[in-house]
């Protein structure tokens, strides 16, 4: 289950953060998101030269904690997506697939003429689209 999603701008400004859990571990999730930003910076600034996917948007698993797995994604426009999940045996392909759909939703949201770049995304349509994608996460394991 996805418990938290975050979009963070290129100056580490929060653009969107949403928890999908009933329990009140919001603070903990925010902390995880915050820590993952450093991991992303570290990973992007010191890429493994051998990796064939050196500049790919999908950054893979950022770090595992006892209860969560944290994945990252970095767009060409230096926007970070962070996904926190409680599924511990998750497939990379599913996460990639998720981020691709999430990225498309994000791009449409910032194409709204009234969206101000760098400001929080308040779009209702975006929220609805994201919750649909979150619900379908891992279900379409065909790929």
């Amino acid at each position, binding site marked *: 289950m996805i418990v938290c999603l975050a979009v963070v701008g290129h100056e580490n400004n929060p653009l969107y953060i949403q928890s999908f859990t009933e329990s009140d571990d919001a603070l903990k999730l925010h902390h995880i998101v915050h820590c993952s930003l450093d991991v992303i910076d570290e990973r992007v600034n010191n890429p493994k030269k051998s990796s064939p996917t050196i500049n790919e948007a999908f950054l893979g698993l950022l770090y595992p904690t006892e209860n969560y797995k944290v994945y990252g994604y970095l767009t060409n426009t230096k926007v970070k997506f962070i996904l926190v999940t409680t599924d511990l045996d998750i497939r990379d392909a599913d996460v990639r697939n998720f981020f691709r759909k999430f990225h498309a939703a994000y791009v449409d*949201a910032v194409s*709204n*003429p*009234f969206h101000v770049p760098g400001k929080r995304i308040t779009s209702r349509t975006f929220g609805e689209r994201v919750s649909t994608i979150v619900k379908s996460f891992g279900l379409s394991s065909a790929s």
Partner: protein
Amino acid sequence: MAPAAPKSGDVIFASVDRVNAELFTLTYGAIVRQLITDLEEVEEVNKQLDQMGYNIGVRLVDEFLAKSSVSRCVDFRETADVIAKVGFKMFLGVTASVTNWDADGTTCSLILEDNPLVDFVELPDTCQGLHYCNILSGVVRGALEMVSMKTEVTWLRDMLRGDDVFELQVKLLKQVPEEYPYKDDE
């Protein structure tokens, strides 16, 4: 020479130079946003968009008549139909339908279920009085004026305000008869 038969909107749209609709959609959105910044009052923005549309309608009507081979319509009913089926299609790639005729045939509604102007658009709460697509009403008014029909065009339904379709009411105020004093071959 017999006039060429009018072409369908689909045929014409397939034959004109086309561009990626995103460019059009985003450009229009950026214009609206900039106008809101510069004019401040939403009512002024509505007026300006209508004026821009009017200018465009006046200019596009020649291209429309030339490419569609539509002979000038005399009848308002027929004209409304051509605008909906051919005009909208050949420029925006979408077709409108015509409904809600009044008894004396001078008022009708153009219904749009799909409209490339509003892809990605969500109105902020501060812009509730904005007729985001007001450029379209201006285009219709301008084009009709060039074929001697003076009209009043009003938005009745707007998908950005939660309606299920866009509904543009077109009311014929005055039809100026066209003057053709001499025929060319006389």
